[in-house]
């Protein structure tokens, strides 16, 4: 059976990190399986975890009154979910629901924060990786808002 450090090593998020760092982080991680319909995180509840998705699909959703849950994006093998554990008040902004069997590595937020404080160079490396993904997600959200497939993309910013 593979060790947690070896599983961390396989995930693109941690690619290129030295084994010593992965061994150091492994104590924060747990191998978790979610079944279809299970929630990895719920909106407005404490955000205690950071997820590395190894297999399966996760829907990032928000509940819209009079409509129900609206899926904003799906995440797949190789993606990560969750950075609300990084900043106070450590509250999840979205629901994350397994759409099929999801295999993931779940890292404790408090544990990760502590490790990053203890090892600032590792902390900086991880923050750069989070920042890159957060920027990509922001870029994607903006493109999604532009309604790029329509004949007249986006009515944003136009007077009615």
């Amino acid at each position, binding site marked *: 059976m593979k060790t947690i450090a070896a599983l961390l090593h396989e995930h693109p998020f941690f690619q290129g990190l030295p084994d010593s760092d992965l061994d150091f982080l492994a104590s924060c991680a747990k191998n978790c399986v979610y079944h279809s319909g299970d929630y990895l995180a719920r909106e407005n509840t404490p955000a205690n975890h950071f997820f590395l998705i190894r297999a399966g699909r996760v*829907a990032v959703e928000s509940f819209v009154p009079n409509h129900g849950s*609206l*899926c*904003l*994006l*799906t995440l*797949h093998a*190789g*993606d990560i979910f969750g950075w609300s554990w990084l900043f106070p008040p450590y509250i999840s902004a979205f629901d994350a*629901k397994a*759409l099929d069997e999801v295999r993931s590595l779940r890292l404790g937020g408090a544990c990760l924060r502590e490790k990053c404080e203890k090892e600032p160079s590792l902390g900086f490396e991880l923050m750069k990786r989070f920042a890159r993904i957060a920027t*990509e997600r922001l*870029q*994607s959200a903006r*493109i*999604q808002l*532009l*309604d*790029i*497939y*329509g*004949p007249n*993309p986006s009515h944003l910013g136009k007077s009615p």
Partner: protein
Amino acid sequence: MIPSVFQVVHRYVEYPGTFTLHLAKPRQSTEGFQPGQFNMLYAFGTGESAISFSDLANDDGTLVHTIRAQGSVTQALERLREGDSLGIRGPFGRGWPLEVSQGKNLLIIAGGLGLAPLRPVIYQAQRDLLGAHKTYLFYGARRVSELLYRTELQQWSRSLEVVMSVDYGDNNWPGHIGVITDPLQATGIDGANSVAFLCGPEIMMRFCIQVLLRKGVPESAIYLSMERNMKCATGLCGHCQWGPNFICKDGPVFCYRDIRTWFQIHSL
């Protein structure tokens, strides 16, 4: 160039406002054409619109066009029923350079209605006529209900790597929800050994090109189909001029390396 009269022999609604017409010229065979070329479809009494071929030349001589009703001409085309007539001039323009995919990964990237001009390329890839090492289809649309050629997409996924993405979908949708640039970014391809054919709204192509360049696909291996309003379609009226090019005769398919300058000028 005088339009020939064609008849609608089959009409199919892809989704409300978007339809596919199969057209035949009574008692005559039709001219050959290249995938990526277009015809001018003339709705009698209303006017003409440029519409791409959305199928290969059929043995029975029918032409296939997929059209989204936008303004007066395309709405008039939408009102045509089986047995009705319309005029056709064409084929026009330069199509997809199919030979460049020989031995390479072929990335076919379509947004919304942009799948129509690429469908003939997909048919060729499926029949293994392009010699591509591996063919990928990335197809993005706003919603699941606005995907073209739904049943065919399933068939294609048996022989090609098909990745679909919609902006809005529910939990029954097995593909991606989000923007098409995300799965494109996530695909592990050797960019330097890939060629990409793109068709869709310009803004979508711009974002996809950024991803392709980041993945190491050379500018010279990126081809896109440009759309501008057409009038003569023969390079005479200047209506479709774009930088130094006339889209109707130098395009609509261009190599990104050759048009990058014009692609980045907002007012063009």
